[in-house]
């Protein structure tokens, strides 16, 4: 069994060549994976909120999409990965409950928008995404291949997909 690093909410991890980096139960949160095929360096960010500056840069920087991505890219570079060569995959940003209608809590959509904008800013290609909708997602990044296994609940059953 390859080692598995579990990433919490507002957290990230990087690795090289082997092992799995996973994060459980993305709802409105987004999970961003970045993987450089040449060096096999990759990482995963689980961000809770879109932009740090909007919330006064309070607390843990990895809980925001923009500052979290900055940390993830920095650590990928430290391991020898090149973000310009890397590919990104984006998951999450769901809207779990229809009775939540306040703009302030429509966080999923904004998380996805900001993630795409920030990736573009760094010139990182977005090659796959499974975002929006009503359901949560769990993702596993395989550091040997860059493939992401996603589990999602559909009609009360767990389904799996590989990206």
């Amino acid at each position, binding site marked *: 069994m390859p080692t598995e690093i579990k990433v919490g909410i507002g957290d990230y991890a990087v690795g090289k060549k082997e092992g799995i980096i996973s994060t459980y*139960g993305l*709802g409105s949160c987004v999970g961003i994976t970045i993987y450089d095929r040449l060096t096999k360096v990759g990482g995963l960010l689980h961000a809770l909120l879109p932009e740090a500056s909007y919330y006064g840069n309070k607390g843990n920087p990895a809980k925001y999409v923009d500052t979290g991505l900055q940390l993830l890219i920095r650590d990928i570079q430290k391991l020898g990965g090149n973000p310009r060569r890397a590919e990104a995959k984006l998951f999450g940003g769901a809207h*779990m*409950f229809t009775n939540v209608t306040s703009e302030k809590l429509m966080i999923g959509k904004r998380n996805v928008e900001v993630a795409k904008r920030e990736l573009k800013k760094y010139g990182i290609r977005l090659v796959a995404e499974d975002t929006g909708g009503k359901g949560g997602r769990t993702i596993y990044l395989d550091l040997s291949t860059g493939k992401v296994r996603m589990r999602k609940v559909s009609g*009360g059953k767990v389904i799996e997909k590989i990206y």
Partner: protein
Amino acid sequence: MVESEDYEEYIKNLDEFAKSALVETFNIGASRAADALSEMTGLTVDITVPEIEITSIKAVPEKVGEDVKVAVYIQLSGGFEGHAFFFLDFEDALRIFDLMMGQEPGTTTEFDDMVASAVMEMGNILISAFANALSEFLGTEINQTPPDIAIDFTPAILDFALADVGQHCDYTILLQTEMRIEGVKFKEHFTIIPHPASMKKVVETLLGGFV
């Protein structure tokens, strides 16, 4: 910009006295919720809140587990802002449905629309009774959205509520509850994720007499 009062230190440093005062308040709410459910079903219902836990948002998925659960959600606003969830395992939802219908537990084997609407109504009654108790206690009006139901990974269900709290601080409270219906124990979680300002208000109201 979101207003920037520092709730982080406040929540992290809640002392045992304040915590037990919160547990006490939530227990009053829980027992009223149990009475309401008991009235609706004619069954003996007990709900207690043994403890609350202050935890980092980061660690929530690890604490609540990845299991797929059924959840009823109601948003609270006005005098107390927060997110109320009623969680049930699939099997427990079916067993409770049987008890409510006066059937032998195990009779219902499929989670269909009937079960879903019964669970939603149950969550609605529990959360409303809880909110009413809190409203009387705080002497303030609490508004509620209609209930909604989701079947999903537990952390995914809690996510946006954590995002709401996460705007203000990196810590939140987790409430543990125990429920017994006709003496049968259920692994449910009746969880309130309060806005930090509202939690502070509850503590201040509680301790108001002593300061």
